[in-house]
């Protein structure tokens, strides 16, 4: 399966030494989407949760203080930029590094929340992210060893698929699942929807969704099932 079947016309490349980013309409669309959402997050303020109190007529406001707001906005912007980078990178190892950056920044966003339940979930998520870095980099290393290259533009030209390449991409998929905490682990992240300060929380979901879409493209390029 070549690049144009998945992503549409190859519009150009950005050469940075051995790391060559390539631009297709598919990648550019996700890149622009990630950047637009990051801009929206950068200019927005946190939400305030209003809780009705039982027994009185007062309402309780759950606010995010300024320090917490600042660090979460900063980490959310970094997460958005890393997501945008992961969308257009054309190098497997570069992609895994972007995913790791997303993972560590996500843990940071969650760990800045001042609620015990959220922190418990964040701790478990951190455990998964630590475990996931082994299959993530291990998968990239196995693909490098079995193909001799890391560039996706070269990987797409390799006519054969060995079982070791499939095993490497399986490990890579496990790593991406763990780092971004996608679908099977949404149970962990459901805790975060209820916290005040939601626009920054949403970048975690957006990044994991976009990264898994891009990861599917990368795995199709490596494994060529069609």
């Amino acid at each position: 399966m070549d690049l144009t079947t998945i992503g549409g016309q190859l519009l150009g490349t950005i050469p940075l030494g051995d790391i060559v980013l390539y631009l297709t309409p598919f990648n550019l669309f996700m890149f622009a989407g990630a950047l637009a959402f990051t801009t929206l997050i950068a200019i927005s303020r946190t939400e305030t949760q209003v809780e009705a109190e039982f027994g009185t007529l007062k309402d309780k406001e759950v606010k995010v203080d300024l320090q917490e707001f600042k660090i979460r906005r900063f980490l959310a912007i970094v997460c958005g930029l890393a997501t945008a980078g992961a969308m257009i990178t054309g190098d497997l190892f570069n992609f895994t590094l972007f995913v790791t950056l997303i993972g560590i920044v996500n843990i940071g966003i969650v760990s800045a929340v001042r609620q015990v339940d959220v922190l418990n979930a964040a701790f478990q998520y951190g455990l998964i992210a630590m475990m996931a870095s082994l299959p993530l980099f291990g998968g990239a290393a196995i693909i490098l060893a079995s193909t001799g290259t890391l560039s996706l533009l070269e990987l797409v030209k390799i006519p054969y698929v060995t079982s070791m390449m499939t095993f490497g991409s399986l490990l890579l998929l496990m790593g991406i699942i763990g780092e971004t905490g996608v679908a099977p682990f949404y149970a962990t992240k459901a805790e975060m929807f209820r916290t005040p300060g939601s626009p920054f929380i949403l970048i975690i979901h957006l990044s994991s969704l976009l990264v898994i879409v891009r990861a599917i493209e990368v795995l199709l390029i490596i494994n060529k099932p069609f």
Partner: protein
Amino acid sequence: MNIGRIWNSLANPKRIPRLFALILAIILLAGFIIPISLNDHQLYPRPTPQSQISVLNPLAPYDRGGIPLKETGTVKAQYPKNSLELGQITAYLSPIAIGVKNTTYYYGTSIYSSPGGLIDEILYYTRGFDTILESSILMMAFIIASWVALHFTMRREGEDEE
């Protein structure tokens, strides 16, 4: 078993890392029965094992030849047209490195080998973007750790045990 019960048991965040670790362990164990097929046209060429050690080359196993700024060393790039000056500083050694090289045969495998130009060539010239990302990952980790340490996200002494 009812699927609702499975979903409910997965909703507990404590179970998720265990499930992940179990699946990962199964995949890693399956890796033992995968036939190893290595590509012998590797991007970064290496000399035959032990060949440099047997001629008592102090830079073994990392000697790639070349004279800094005069003769290029043997370093390959995926896209040679993107890194035209590749190999020019492969053989560069810092003054301290030259001193160590003259005293021992095991310079190449020691920690001192890092000032050599080879790492600069591969890490910072052909794959420079990776280095930027690696250091930004480290920086983010330090920012998060120091923020959490300074602000004590949550004091837990007074919290009731669940």
